[in-house]
């Protein structure tokens, strides 16, 4: 079986297995899986309002997925998207509140502030990996929690006056779109989705069409060969983490300037960053795959909110399905093995 076909079959089979397992969980715990999944679909696409919410949820997933995928392609595992997203979120809101400028300067500045904050948060693990060979997985996990506590402190004592939320960003720094809101029956859909699609195109161009991208991928394939060919491996490692962090920070800016329009104290992580790992894996770490996987996860997440209302199934069913999809994709060795067995048997 060709590797290209397998690259498509493995994620599709994983998703199907995950959904089937979810149906079994519903059956065992006394729910009707057809009703459950029906409610999920209606909750995601039932009318224009829900479609708007679904597209809005897809936006940060695309950014989180691109962030994880970008680092993956250079052979790095960025588990720190959650933290990079948070610092990007708060940096964009901060810039949104601190300045009073016309929109064509203010909004780009706020968005870029989010990217810059995420990039800085990605630089630390990248630098430590390049210089001191410290494993980026551990550092990015630790950076997540440092971000969580730092951001909560900033919201409470620096940006707001000991409040749990900041005030809303002014219209000049907002991604909110009255046009899209009207179109979708006043959902929270905002302009961020266009930026997300643009980011996916940039991701593809940088990785596939530039020398820098070639070097980054080359380092991901084989560090020693890349070094022998005259590439600066350390520089590429840092660069990869910085760009990855910038994607994640942009995802945070979408939440800060679009979905919510303000910053608030987080008791725990939003989960978007961790879901980004699943999005990237499922999407095979390529731009179009990330968009498709983000669409699937956005649909599941938003649709899940309707499940308890219509079918009594707790929303957490979707978390279980997502976890199982990750297991199946990660265990692709066994799926490939079975596919090959099946193919041989057919001959």
């Amino acid at each position, binding site marked *: 079986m060709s590797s290209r076909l397998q690259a498509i079959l493995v994620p599709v089979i994983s998703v199907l297995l995950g959904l089937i397992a979810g149906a079994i*969980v519903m059956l065992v*715990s*006394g*729910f009707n899986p057809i009703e459950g999944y029906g409610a999920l679909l209606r909750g995601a696409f039932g009318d224009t309002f829900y479609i708007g919410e679904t597209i809005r949820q897809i936006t940060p997933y695309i950014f989180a997925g691109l962030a994880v995928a970008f680092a993956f392609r250079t052979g790095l*595992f960025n*588990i720190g998207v959650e933290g990079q997203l948070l610092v990007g979120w708060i940096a964009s809101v901060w810039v949104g509140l601190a300045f009073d400028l016309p929109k064509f300067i203010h909004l780009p500045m706020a968005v870029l502030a989010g990217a810059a904050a995420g990039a800085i948060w990605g630089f*630390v693990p990248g630098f*430590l990996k390049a210089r*001191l060979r*410290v*494993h980026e*997985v*551990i*550092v990015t*996990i*630790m*950076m*997540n*929690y*440092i971000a*969580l*506590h*730092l951001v*909560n*402190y900033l919201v409470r*004592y620096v940006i707001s006056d000991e409040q749990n939320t900041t005030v809303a960003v002014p219209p000049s720094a907002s991604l909110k779109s009255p046009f899209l809101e009207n179109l979708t029956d006043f959902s929270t859909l905002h302009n961020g989705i266009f930026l997300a699609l643009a980011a996916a195109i940039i991701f593809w161009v940088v990785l596939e069409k530039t020398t820098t991208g070639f070097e980054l991928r080359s380092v991901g394939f084989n560090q020693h060969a890349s070094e022998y060919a005259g590439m600066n491996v350390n520089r590429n490692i840092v660069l990869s983490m910085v760009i990855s962090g910038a994607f994640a920070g942009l995802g945070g800016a979408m939440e800060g300037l679009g979905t919510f329009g303000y910053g608030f104290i987080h*008791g*725990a992580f939003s989960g978007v960053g*961790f879901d980004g*790992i*699943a999005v990237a*894996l499922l999407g095979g770490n390529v731009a179009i795959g990330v968009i498709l996987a983000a669409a699937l996860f956005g649909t599941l997440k938003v649709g899940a909110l309707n499940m*308890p209302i219509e079918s009594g199934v*707790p929303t*957490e*069913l*979707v*978390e*279980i399905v*997502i*976890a*199982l999809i*990750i*297991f199946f*994709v*990660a*265990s*692709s*060795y*066994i799926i490939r093995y079975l596919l090959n067995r099946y193919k041989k048997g057919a001959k």
Partner: protein
Amino acid sequence: MDILSAFEILVKSMLFASAPLILTALGGVFSERSGVVNIGLEGLMVIGAFSAIIFNITFASTLGGATPWVALLVAMAIGGLFSLIHALASITFRADQVVSGVAINFLALGLSVFLVKAWYGAGQTPKIPVPMYYTNIPILSDIPVIGTIFFSNYLTSYVAIIIAFIAWFVLFKTPFGLRLRSVGEHPLAADTMGINVYRMRYIAVFISGILGGLGGAVYAQTITQDFSGTTITGQGFIALAAVIFGKWHPLGAMGAALFFGLAQSLAIIGSSFAFLQDVPNWILLAAPYILTILALAGFIGRADSPKANGIPYIKGKR
């Protein structure tokens, strides 16, 4: 506040906050020493906390005072079983161990909150009827001054410290421990010597599940006394930090967990100490993570992981 009562509060809250961290970190040491990275410690704690709370609520009327202790055993068993999913994926199916660990965290949280909602109709369980209490150790707690400080705490804190010494003995003084460490350093050599690499790794991950489940159960039954999606928020990752800060050594991990427990409790009660009033609260909360990064970077002694940590072993491949 005089110095003695400040010291008493500090020691007590340190022992209180660090017991679950010590237990979970020891689990992490076993798993990682055998070569299996365990990011899923957080999820194992969630499953342990969930099992213990549900068991406590369900069986309190029949078991009475023994309930929390039986609940700990149940949580250990379920944590162990749950960790086998991680073992299956990362050892047999050769999945990326980090990815599998992330999935374990998702699955634990999703499954437990799903079941709580299905059984109790709300996102949070009721309070447990029989929580754990302080225990006065006979004779020792009657010693003036230090008696109440060191010998009137949760029994689980002492259990955690004792288990740390047992773990050290098992890992460094028994043939089993030598085999377990050898498959984490050089699985091919271990395999050549007739050690079943897969079996050793399965056992190590199973132990990490038992201890992680126990850690979560202790946390839930002493600190939160109920279960919801936010019962365990990051304790598993602090335990993971303790594994690394303690340089993958059981006693080191225990020391690190005690220290991180102290940092956590200082973040909550720190404002009552004059010398800490100027330190922003977030630095104390983030201290375990900042220190772990510094330790990894070599500023606080070099931390080197077991050599084969994170690499699936494929028999016959050199």
